[in-house]
């Protein structure tokens, strides 16, 4: 009974998000806006440095595609979920319809995270496809799948929390500039974290995206991969819990 309620509630929230996404996908500007930056990074860095650089015997193009999958999935899941929640709360007030429905906070949280995962998977698929077409590299391993799913779940959950807490849309730009953007560049997307000074490295290992990239590029299941996996899993469970509590205590 409780499980059925949870599934139905999460499904209802997911249905709304997917209907909204369907409408948005018909607009060229939306697709362009979401994927243009990572595709430009891929083309510019890939063609610019690709054949001249390799890290530990790994072609730079492969390294870059792996990093961009992590970054793009993070950006898309976080941005789209955060915008959906905050815009629904602060502007068109449609979020109030969800919060005053009999759907449990945990189910709302799950529905929103699932919607972020699906949106992020679409974005990641575009980068995987572009990497294959442009540089003949194909990133699809068990490690990559785990990294991608954990990354999407964490950043979708984070998007819900930020969306629930911000007071205006300007605050979201601040979080983007101070947290998401530095993470995009320093977490091993374009170059190995090991190249950074030790002091910076200490901070960078606090970023979830760094651990996504470690798992994404893993060849074997070694200690570092297990630790990164556990950190990412714990972070994902933490945002899920915090998000559900924030939803439960939501008050205008």
């Amino acid at each position, binding site marked *: 009974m409780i499980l059925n309620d949870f599934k139905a509630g999460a499904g209802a929230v997911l249905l709304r998000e997917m209907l*909204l996404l369907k409408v948005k996908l018909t607009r060229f500007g939306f697709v362009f806006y979401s994927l243009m930056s990572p595709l430009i990074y891929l083309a510019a860095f890939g063609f610019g440095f690709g054949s001249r650089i390799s890290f530990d015997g790994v072609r730079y193009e492969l390294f870059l595609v792996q990093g961009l999958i992590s970054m793009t999935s993070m950006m898309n899941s976080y941005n789209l979920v955060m915008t959906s929640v905050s815009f629904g709360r602060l502007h068109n007030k449609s979020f*109030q319809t969800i919060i005053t429905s009999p759907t449990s906070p945990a189910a709302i949280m799950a529905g929103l995270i699932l919607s972020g995962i699906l949106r992020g998977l679409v974005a990641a698929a575009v980068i995987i496809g572009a990497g294959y077409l442009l540089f003949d590299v194909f990133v699809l391993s068990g490690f990559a799948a785990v990294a991608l799913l954990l990354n999407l779940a964490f950043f979708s959950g984070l998007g819900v929390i930020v969306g629930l807490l911000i007071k205006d849309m300007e605050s979201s730009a601040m979080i983007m500039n101070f947290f998401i953007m530095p993470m995009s560049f320093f977490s091993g997307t374009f170059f190995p974290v090991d190249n950074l000074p030790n002091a910076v490295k200490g901070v960078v290992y606090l970023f979830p995206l760094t651990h996504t990239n470690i798992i994404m590029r893993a060849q074997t299941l070694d200690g570092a991969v297990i630790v990164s996996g556990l950190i990412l899993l714990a972070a994902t469970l933490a945002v899920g819990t915090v998000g559900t509590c924030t939803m439960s205590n939501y008050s205008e």
Partner: protein
Amino acid sequence: MILVAENLSKSYRRVQAADNVSLRIDVGEVFGLLGPNGAGKTTVIKMISTLTHPDSGSVVIKGFDIRAQARQARSAFAVVPQENNLDGELSVVDNLRVYASLHRVATPRAAIDRIIAEFGIADKARVPVEKLSGGQKRRVMIARVMLTQPELILLDEPTLGLDPSFRRDIWNLITRIRRQGTAILLTTHYTDEAESLCDRVAIMSKGRIIHEDTPQNLITTAGSFVLETTDSNGQRDFRLFTSQEEINRSLIDRKDIEPYTVRAAKLEDIVANVEHNH
């Protein structure tokens, strides 16, 4: 009782938006919260609808405490807020689908077809909500909550900003919903709306309920007659009286109130009197 709200208080920073508000609404009753903008009506609706946590007080809907048994309480009521909260990019039918899904309507397709036919919105069913007029959006918002056949509807300023024909249209919808036995808590600052639709009315001012009764009893108790006067400086004023004799007595020895008129009191006069005195 479908709704029992007791001693609800809420303040935002230093503004007391609701101060010890208590309400009881019977099954099938239409109860109006009447008052000017800023009286605290929307805050009360938001607290009852679980959107705003009260600083103190309690709300029980159909026997369920909204804090401890929020999900059960939310199954018994529906909210139509003051502002349009439909998803503008989605069509009318998609908005209905999402709502039916959120509220676990057992046979959603049949319920949506029924509501579309009942509310006469078949020609707009596939139209994105953002393309509808204000009155049409309000009609869809009311239609949407009827998908779940709730036992209590919270209607916040249902005709605010609508032209007279749409206002009349919404009044007819509310009358129809009431006939189905649904209780309605309605906030409005239109006295004619409250007088025409409500069984009982509470007049709010500065976050407090000042009077509560049937519209007719409020008029009778506060004064059935109004003496409108204009003093020598052209300043207009009015006073409520319970009888014509009382008016006559008050006019003796007052030569400075020329001209004056006497007429039957309306709910509007009672509300204006409350605003004047509080």
